[in-house]
């Protein structure tokens, strides 16, 4: 009976959408909406598409990993397009997508090899590279920190890009800025993020980059508590406004742009299965405009960041994305 009822309701929903504009379902990962990070950013991308194309959009929140398969299945039963974000959803999408060949899947941060899945990855390391260089240039103590959530590829790309940026600063300026790094083991524990950041401050770091979702909010809080001279670096979205003057910059990735582009490709018929990697070149990653901290950064450093950005775009600098690549990374001789 219950099964019948569900089938009935689903078919009504399905009928209701016939002839109507595209229906998009966005399935969050466990970070959920309000993470002030990539789930929010993805939803912003969906909203952009709603405004521009008048599509119907819905969101299903996942509260634990076990929700992924049921949520994706529920979404795929009624939607034309399913947007799935977060590396941890990879297996779930790989399982669900083949069952719904007529539904298009747009995935963020992981790729799935199926004819109806378009995947977007980011070169987080390129944005983090600039953030790392900036952090090293701005550090008064000669030590900077990194706080990670769980070491999954996107977080590691942030970490090694950041460390490469610091190394670049050291080589080009004859400095010896050190990096302290740690993992809190969770993306949703700001108290743990704060404790880890305080530990790094106590070991002499004055600028800490957090790539740890909600846990990273604790890093921003710690910088604010520690007072002037201490900075956090935000992640994924422009988080500078969360504590004006205490967030030096944010290493951003334009999840919103990726999601919007994905939906757009379905609408104009250019949807293509495969993986698209967004880089510094196409503004898919980068650092925030530093609304509150720009006046603190010397013009010379701003200029150096520009030069490095061009060098990354032109391919003169290949920013490492893994621990291995970082170890063999050679800083090319750059003239400012």
């Amino acid at each position, binding site marked *: 009976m219950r099964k019948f009822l569900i089938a009935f309701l689903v078919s009504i929903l399905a009928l209701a959408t016939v002839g109507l504009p595209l229906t998009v379902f966005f399935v969050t990962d466990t970070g959920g909406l309000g993470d*002030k990070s990539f789930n*929010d950013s993805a939803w912003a991308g969906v909203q952009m598409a709603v405004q521009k194309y008048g599509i119907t959009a819905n969101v299903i929140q996942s509260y634990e990993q076990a929700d992924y398969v049921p949520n994706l299945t529920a979404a795929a039963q009624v939607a034309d397009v399913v947007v799935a974000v977060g590396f941890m959803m990879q297996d779930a999408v790989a399982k669900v997508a083949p069952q719904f060949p007529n539904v298009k899947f747009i995935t963020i941060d992981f790729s799935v090899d199926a004819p109806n899945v378009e995947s977007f990855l980011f070169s987080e390391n390129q944005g983090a590279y600039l953030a790392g260089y900036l952090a090293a240039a701005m550090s008064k103590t000669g030590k900077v920190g990194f706080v990670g959530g769980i*070491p999954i590829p996107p977080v590691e790309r942030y970490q090694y890009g950041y460390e490469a940026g610091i190394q670049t600063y050291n080589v080009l300026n004859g400095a010896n800025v050190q990096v302290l790094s740690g993992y809190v083991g969770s993306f949703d524990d700001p108290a743990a993020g704060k404790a880890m950041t305080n530990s790094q401050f106590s070991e002499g770091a004055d600028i800490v980059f957090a790539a740890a979702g909600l846990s990273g909010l604790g890093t921003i809080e710690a910088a604010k508590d520690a007072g002037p001279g201490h900075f956090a670096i935000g992640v994924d979205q422009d988080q500078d406004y969360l504590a004006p003057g205490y967030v030096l910059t944010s290493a951003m990735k334009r999840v919103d742009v990726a999601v919007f582009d994905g939906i757009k490709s379905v609408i104009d018929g250019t949807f293509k299965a495969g993986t698209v990697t967004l880089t510094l070149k196409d503004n898919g990653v980068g650092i925030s405009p530093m609304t509150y901290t720009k006046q603190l950064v010397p013009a010379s450093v701003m200029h150096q960041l520009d030069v490095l950005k061009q060098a990354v775009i032109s391919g003169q600098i290949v920013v490492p994305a893994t621990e291995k690549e970082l170890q063999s990374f050679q800083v090319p001789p750059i003239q400012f």
Partner: protein
Amino acid sequence: MNEWIQAILNVFTNPTFYKSTLTQSTPLILAAMGGVFSETTGVTNIALEGIMLMGAFGGVMGSYFTGNPWYGLALGTFFGLAMAALHAWASIKYGADQIISGTALILLAQGITGFALVELFGQPGSTDLVRSIPLVDLGSFKDVPFFGPIFGNLSPFVYMAFASVIFGWILIYKTKLGLRMRSVGNNPEAADTLGINVYNVRYFGVIMSGLFAALGGAYLSIGELGQFTTNMTNGRGFIALAAMIIGNWNPVGAMSASLLFGAATAFNNQLQSQSILNLSTNTQYIFGMIPYIITLIVVAGFIGKSRAPSADGIPYIKE
């Protein structure tokens, strides 16, 4: 090997390690104290996690709407008391299975806070920043070497946590009410024949547990951060339960176990921050297990068999 000795020395000579131990232990001590109060009278309370979450949310909500974090603390405490009262009502009056009632309350707390977050703050995930409870500034004491950085600027919650231990120990072991609590938890029939109102004493124990657990939760939101985020207690209620069991249902024992957990977490944070170790990411990640490994060693090696109150978790039905 030498770097390791150097790094560990660095950790133990850094005042931040000790301060971090205190701040990491505070929510655990408070919640564990809640557990002690409830279970001493014979009511299992695994709802601590949920009560903490409600305390954390109430704290931010009160602070947000009044602009005064102390009202926030009052509201958080009230939420905690209400949750505990629900648990008491179901498990004492109706003799419900206490594990089930506790689990239901955890789920209820997650649901309520998730729902109210969107309704009140217009967004899921996290609230706006609110005013948090000011730190206790000890003035010139801050300049005392070593001890200044540890004690100079602590949250009042830290003092509350230790005060609650003293309060709990005196109440449970040195007063008439405490004797009644223990007798009700060990042998409710005997207590009843002696004219003790088993139900009232149990209500008292469970409701006090709501008070302490809510304080522990409020510390996380308005003591530490000035913000509520979804499920921000992140399992601390269960760690507090473990601390209570390791501490043999005794306030001082529960405090020691909480301090041990706090110190292990602080040790992990501080050790990862040592630049001389030059750790790979994988090794760092393994460090996250330190608190649990230490717990296993302590539980297996140093603590004797812990003994729960005999009637813990068994509903009492008056004949």
